[in-house]
Structure formats: C-alpha cells, structure tokens
C-alpha cells in the first residue's frame, strides 16, 4: 500500500470503474486529453480511448442532459462539472430530471449517473469556484449526495457511486485534492454510500463534520485533548441519506454534540443533522445542539476566506461552550 493524494485516489477509482464496466463513460469540460483541470481524469483517455473518456463543449446543462440521454440508452455516465459554482446551469437536469427517472417509470428506467464536482474553499479561487452548494441537492428526493474527507474514502466512495444504479452527486473537496494523503490500496474496494465514519473515538463530545472540516475537527480535538476533553469525530461522508444510527450511538455515549459545516449556516446539512438529533436523540443530550458554520453571506472574496471559513479554533470554542454548559 502506498500513500496517495485524495485526487490520485479518485483517479484510481474512476480507472477501476472504467475497466470493470465497458458501459461507463467519463466526460465533461477538459476531462479528455487534458486530464481535467485538476488532473482527476489524468491518463484515462489515453488508456480507454476517446469513445469512453471525452471532453465536451462548454455547457453544463448540455453535459448533464447528455448524461440522461446516455443513461436511458444503456450507458453509465460519470460527468464532471468543472467547479461547483457552475452547477446551477444544470440544476434542472439534476433536480427535475435525473433524480426522478426511477420514480417516474416505476423502476423500468433508471439513471446510473455520478456527477463529480469540486467544491469548498481555502484555495483562493476566483468567484463562484468554491461555493458549498450541497444544501441545494440534499433536499432532492432521488439523489444521493456524498463527499469524502480522506484519500481512502475518496477511492472507495467514487467506485460505490459509479456502481450505484441511481444518480449520485459526488462532491470533491478542492482544498483536500493535494493537501490530503493517505494509505490507499491499489486494488478495488468500496466504501458504502450511506455510512458515516467514526474518525476518532471519544467520550465527552461528538463532533459531526464532513469534507474539509473533518481535518479542522481533528485539529480542534488535539487541542481539546490537552484539557482532557475527549472528542469523538464523525465524518458524515453521506450528506443524504444521513447515517443517524452512527450519530445517535455516539450521542448516547457523549451527551454533547457540535455539528460543523463549511457552508453558510442557513438551511444547510447541519440543520438537517440537528433536527434528526432533536427528533431521535434529544433525550441523551446534556447541552443544546450547537452548529459551527460559515456566516450567512455570499461566499467571500478570496482574501477573506481565512476569516469566513469555519476553522479549528471555532470548533474548539464551540465544544468548550457545549461541554461546560
């Protein structure tokens, strides 16, 4: 086993999916010869040919519409939207079309589509490149929404997503692409699409996070440990559906919870997690459910990301407040 970057793990996962099923197609803007603007599809066109891995004209709605037509003629599309901020051009295809296909045809038709798109801040990108848009898709019946926080999960999750027979929105955290490295087996393995991961066990507080905030939670946990506050960290991995079993189990043990998201606080994943907890585990809590999230402003100009994105210190402060409630 070798240490690999998060993005290399994704490339390996797509490679395996392409090798295993000749119906798998990878396409999007610059994903062919160029290997993607982040090299996520590097070398795949050379290996599988232009029929399987190809670039498309610059039109997101066209790309996802193409995916639907390919899906209903027997293909397994893995389209890429170059940056999450551009996905709004194609929301009809996601929200009004592919998510409903199984429903509308009573399972006689389906849409085995995996939409890959980078999201999340911290890399000083231009406007509308790093927006956290998961709240737009977690409320859509018929869609699964996942995001890995480690290289290992990235490979296992992308394979599961591509193999799944329903549409999956696969969110790749931009900041983690090259900053995160981990042990990644060369061979095929899968990570389930609907299971959270207990990243670190603890007894005093449950910190629930996903994507780029998992490592912030880990940093916070180290500081807290010095003061004998033992934090359990759950990486959601799946933003829809929520793995409430894992969340409730942890809360029964720690009696305190802090939910962390990089996105703006309003109507986010954190709100869904909080209401699931209030419905299913409120009686185990010794303190209010607390959310750490970005302010309800438009995504910041690059120079202000450092004051906008929730950092480990914010998580640390929230935990101290909760455990001392």
């Amino acid at each position, binding site marked *: 086993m070798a240490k690999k970057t998060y993005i290399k793990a994704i490339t390996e996962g797509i490679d395996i999916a392409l090798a295993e099923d000749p119906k798998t*197609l990878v396409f999007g803007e610059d994903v062919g010869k160029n290997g993607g603007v982040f090299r996520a599809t590097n070398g795949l066109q050379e290996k599988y040919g232009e*029929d399987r891995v190809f670039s*498309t*004209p610059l*039109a997101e*709605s*066209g790309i*996802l*519409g*193409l*995916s*639907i*037509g*390919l*899906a*209903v*003629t*027997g*293909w397994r599309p893995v389209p890429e939207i170059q940056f999450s901020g551009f996905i709004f051009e194609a929301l*009809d*295809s996601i929200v*009004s*079309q592919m998510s409903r296909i*199984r*429903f*509308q*045809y*009573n*399972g*006689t*038709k*389906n849409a085995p589509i995996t939409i890959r798109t980078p999201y999340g801040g911290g890399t000083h990108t231009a406007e509308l490149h790093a927006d956290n848009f998961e709240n737009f898709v977690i409320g859509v*019946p*018929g869609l*699964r929404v996942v995001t890995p926080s480690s290289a290992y999960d990235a490979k296992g999750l992308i394979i599961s997503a591509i193999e*799944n*027979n*329903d549409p999956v929105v696969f969110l790749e955290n931009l900041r983690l692409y090259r900053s995160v490295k981990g042990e990644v087996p060369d061979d095929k393995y899968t990570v389930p699409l*609907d299971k959270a991961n207990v990243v670190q066990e603890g007894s005093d507080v449950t910190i629930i996070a996903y994507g780029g905030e998992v490592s912030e939670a880990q940093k916070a946990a180290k500081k807290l440990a010095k003061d004998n506050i033992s934090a359990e960290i759950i990486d959601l991995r799946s933003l*829809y*559906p*929520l*793995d*409430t*079993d894992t969340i409730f189990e942890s809360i029964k043990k720690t009696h305190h919870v802090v939910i962390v998201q990089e996105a703006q606080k309003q109507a986010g994943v954190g709100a869904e997690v909080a209401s699931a907890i209030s419905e299913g585990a409120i009686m185990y809590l010794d303190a209010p459910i607390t959310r750490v999230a970005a302010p309800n402003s438009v995504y910041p100009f690059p120079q202000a990301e450092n004051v906008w994105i929730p950092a480990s210190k914010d998580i640390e402060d929230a935990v101290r407040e909760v455990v001392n409630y």
Partner: protein
Amino acid sequence: MADAKAVDFAKIKAEEGAAFAKPVQILDNDGKVVNKELMANFTDDQLVDLMKKMVWERALHEQTMSFSQQGRLGFYAPTWGEEASEMGTAAAFKKQDFLFPAYRDLPQLIQHGATVAQMYLWSKGHVKGNLFDARALRPQIIIGAQMVEMAGGALGIKKNGEKDTVAYAYTGEGGSSQGDTYEGMNFAGVFQAPAVFIIQNNGWAISYPRKLQTEAETIAQKGVAAGIPAVQVDGMDVLACYEVAKEAREFAAAGNGPVLIETLTYRFGAHSSAGDDPSRYRTKDEEKPWFDKDPLIRLRKYLTEKKLWSEEEEEKYVAECKDDFKKAMKEADSVEPEKVSDMLKRTFEVPTPDIKEQIKKYEAKESK
C-alpha cells in the same frame, strides 16, 4: 471623402432569413400538387394512411377535449390544427427510434407505441401513464430539457452501434428560445449524433407571439448556430412534413449528424385545457387564413378527387376512433389509485433508511 464600409449589416440580416424562408410544400391549400416530383414518392395507400392518421389525431383531440371539459382528465395541451406537423413527421420514424416528446406530443407518442389509455393516465397524473411499450421518454414538461436529453440519447444510439436508428424530439417555437435547445443542437452537432430536432412553430407560446420570440426570420436558421442542416416545411401539408422528416431521418441514420426541421403550423384552439383563452391575445383576422390552411381539408380534397377517400368513410372512421377513445378512458378510469408506499419504494433502487421508515409508516396507514 471615402465612405466605404467594411460590412453591410442590413444586407446580411435580410439574407440570413431569406436563405431559410422557403418552406417545402407538396400540396397547396386547395389540394393541388405544387411539387410533382415529390408527389411521385407517395403511393395511394400511403396517402390514405396519412389521411387516416390526421383524422385519427383530430378525433383524438375532439374526444379528449370533451373528456377534459367533463373534468375526467388533468392537463391536456390541444393539438387541433397541428395534425400534419405531428402525424406527418411521426410517420417517418421507426419503432427502434427513440422519441423525446414534449407535453403537446401525445399523438406522436401514441403513434410510437403508447396506448391512448396510457396517455389518459398521463394526463390524469398516474405513474402507469409513463409505462408504455415504446422507446420513448414521457412527455417533457420542462421546455427544452428534451433537447439536451435527446442529444444524449442520439449519442447513446451511436455508441451502441445501432444501425438505422435515430433519436427525435419535439418542441415549439417558444422552446427555441431556451438555452437547452441550442445546447442540444450544438452537442448533437459536435458528436455527429443521429438526432432529428423538430420545432413546431405554431406562432404562439401561450400568449406570446412568434415575432417577439426571436429577431430571426425563421426558426430553421438557428441550425446555422450549431452548424447543422436545417429546413423549413409547410407544417399544414402532411406530405411535405412526412417527406422532409423521412429525409432527415435517413440523413441522420446514415451517420451524417443531426438535422433541424421547423414546421410552420397553427394551433386552432387554446394553449392548454387549463383555462387559456386565445381571444385575449389574438384576433379572428389572424386565425382565418390559418383555418383555410387546415391540413385535413387539403389532403381530403386531393384524395376525394382521386376517389381514394369519401365523407362517409371519414365519418365512419371518426366514429370508430371515438369508440376506441371512450374505451381507453374507461380503461384509464379503472386503474387503481397510487399508494404512497409505492411512490417511496420506487424513489431509489435500494431505499435509504429514512425512506424505509416512511414505507413502514405508510404501509401501516394503507392497510387500515
């Protein structure tokens, strides 16, 4: 003082439209043949068949409007006046082709294999309305979405290596203003996919007139933007519609890439059964010349003169059709209402934990 100009924009504008404003026509309003060469492509049987298809569509419209007025149906977009555009083009496609219809294209979908009962179920809003035995998607409500999806369907057909097979889609001239319509044509062009785009230009997008939809003189010339061949056809002439669609299909099926067809047609009645009233936005003076172009009249005149068709035959056939439609309505009415638990079960292949819980809850409710 020289006043030479690099560009004559006025001339370019005039020429752009003129190049496409030449609708293909075979029969004129009086049922006279204006293109003998193309007319020779049709056998008597084919002519009678096309006549029957149009009579069938008009009877379907009349019966469906009547059911709609009785409150027995849900959404219905009338097709009265568009019989040549719809049946003429639809008749050119084969069973193996993949149809991407819009909400007004129920007749084409039925021609392609759906049953009338299923289309009534679609109108009433029942999942069984979508479970037809035809290579097609359900009627698309989001205007333009069928165009990008059709480009993908055509690419899928090409990648499957399917011979003599195309994808085809319909929208209205209002739909030609959508980004998805341009994107669909452009994608199909880039991938040289076997796709036939059919834009039925009936002059009105609900209350919004064609001339305000675009400054382009024809919708057909929009094909230029995608680099795909395009043609305007007299959409009240079923023979011209059939011939053009057949040639477009052959061109696309032979691997030459997509084609765009603009049919010039008219909706004689309202936009939809949902309370639209054309007298709010268009005049009788405008409607009159279009009624003179009625696609049934011109072919009826031609066939009657040739002793291939008669008023009695038509009346008898209309009565037969309407009997069938009444039976279809009964069939649709007899279908059991849907259950919430079934809706939940068909949302994912493997239900998510929250859906599993909801299935249990609704099954308990439904068993009471």
